[in-house]
């Protein structure tokens, strides 16, 4: 396998774009990434396109129809919330294997004001009934709420500690012009906000919205010809949920993240202590705190201490989600994974503006898609 580097990234400001179609969002991100890398669409040999809600609609080809139908292979991928990062991984593998020299991965999604996800009965033969509320709950705020409450049970974690995660990420978002919401809230405002599923209030849940991100990958030696600041993909790992005791009832978001992180540290030849920043999957405030432990940023049961002691704030020992995270940057499902990687790239190149983590050399981007898929990418300068 060849060493692979990122030569350029592109990202749309997250938000709602009723005047654009999803392929236009994706196309903008691709063009921006190509511009950064100093290439044109004529140089691109492979496009991997991630999109979830229009997965059957050939979004990758529709992007090329906007910006250049060069006849290259296009692969459309869907992997829940890990869709965009799975696209990056597929492009990475295609280049690492030697099959292609220049590949572009793009993640895009248009959700509009789509509401609560999950909890429906949607069998094509009508064999499933709607169970939501009648036999528990499958909506996302509940599933990730229950996972947080399980952490409360095991380690005595509190509602306030989970709320502090949201306080941190909203505070971070103020400095990120790409964020869907750039608004700081007090801890009291977060804790007293409308409850969605206890213990997650409105400001502890990510918004729905639109967005796109793109990444240009090349063999590392080739990338050095295009840019003076290539970012090496030191690890790219994808896992699914292995059997665990309650996984089929309460999706276990911990074990597959733990395994992906372990494999990623092994591939990169580093440990969590070597990281300068982390972008992790804070779809709900309860989820982020669990992943401090799953990614090895602290020991088992120490997630609450990480937030209490401020270690994960910008300027702390290991800043987490300085972009504002999914909670405020937004979470257009298929875009998220590619955008988390793009965010890390900007920091490693010293181009993250006011939110720059000074001197960042190594960063980790984590995504989990319920169902479940987990990606961990470790990037280094």
């Amino acid at each position, binding site marked *: 396998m060849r060493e692979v580097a990122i030569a350029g990234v592109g990202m749309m400001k997250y938000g709602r774009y009723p005047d654009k179609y999803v392929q236009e969002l994706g196309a903008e991100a691709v063009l921006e990434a190509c511009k950064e890398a100093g290439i044109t669409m004529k140089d691109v040999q492979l496009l991997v396109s991630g999109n979830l809600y229009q997965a059957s609609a050939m979004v990758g080809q529709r992007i090329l129809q906007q910006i250049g139908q060069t006849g290259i292979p296009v692969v459309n991928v869907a992997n829940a919330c890990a869709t965009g990062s799975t696209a990056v991984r597929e492009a990475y593998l295609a280049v690492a294997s030697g099959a292609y020299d220049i590949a572009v991965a793009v993640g895009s999604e248009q959700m*509009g*004001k*789509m*509401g*609560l996800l999950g*909890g*429906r009965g*949607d*069998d*094509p*033969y*009508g064999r499933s*009934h*709607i*169970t*939501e*509320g*009648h*036999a*528990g*709950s*499958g*909506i996302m*705020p*509940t599933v990730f*709420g*229950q*996972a947080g*409450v*399980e952490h*409360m*049970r095991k380690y005595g974690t509190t509602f306030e500690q989970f709320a502090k995660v949201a306080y941190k990420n909203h505070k971070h978002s103020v400095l990120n012009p790409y964020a869907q919401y750039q608004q700081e809230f007090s801890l009291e405002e977060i804790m007293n906000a*409308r*409850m*969605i*599923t*206890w*213990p*997650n209030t409105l400001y502890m849940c990510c918004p729905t919205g639109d967005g796109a991100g793109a990444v240009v990958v090349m063999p590392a030696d080739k990338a050095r010809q295009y840019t003076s600041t290539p970012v090496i993909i030191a690890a790219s790992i994808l896992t699914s949920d292995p*059997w665990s*005791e*309650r996984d*089929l*009832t*309460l999706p276990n978001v911990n074990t597959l993240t733990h395994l992906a992180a372990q494999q990623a540290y092994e591939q990169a030849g580093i440990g969590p202590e070597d990281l300068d920043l982390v972008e992790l999957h804070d779809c709900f405030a309860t989820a982020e705190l669990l992943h401090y432990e799953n990614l090895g940023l602290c020991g088992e049961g120490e997630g609450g201490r990480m937030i209490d002691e401020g270690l994960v704030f910008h300027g702390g020992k290991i800043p987490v989600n300085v972009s504002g995270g999914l909670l405020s940057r937004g979470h257009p499902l298929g875009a998220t994974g590619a955008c988390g990687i793009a965010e890390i790239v900007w920091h490693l190149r010293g181009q993250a503006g006011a939110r720059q983590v000074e001197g960042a050399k190594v960063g980790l981007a984590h995504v989990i898609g319920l169902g479940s898929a987990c990606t961990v990418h470790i990037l280094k300068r």
Partner: protein
Amino acid sequence: MSSGLTARFAACYNLLGAERRRPLTSQQPTTVEKKTLPIVAYLHLPESADEEPYLWGNKCISCGAVYVGSRMACSRCTSQQLDRVRFSNSGEIWTFGVVHQSIPGVPTPYVAAIVDLPEGASVRATVTGLDPNQPGPSWFGRKVQMYIEKAYTDKQGNDIITYKYRPVEGS
């Protein structure tokens, strides 16, 4: 907030399910018998007055893993040798959330729990009889008992029966 989403699902349902399921050649029945149906396949409804409802599942003969409902193979060890098991109607709350905002038509708030069963499986369930405004650690491990009730009438006029749990007195 979610009404657009519901309309989307309804549209998908019609496109993918209802229309296609209608046989093209066989004669359409003039009257359809209304049925009483379990909300999930793993809920067994009583077939006589002296029978109790229960949940059922599969147990792997090889490694002992227990699953709710039927499976093709054991997802822990891949063995295809599975036994059908009848679950007890008692259980314990493992974790929970309190849902304050749900899909349209579902009354809130409700307690959505993961209930551990003595046979080694766990189920998603709604738990009644707890104050949804007072969630807390005292709910962990609470002993609960299953009961059934009508959830709703579906589009075909069938009564859909669900299972729920409520705390055992004094637990």
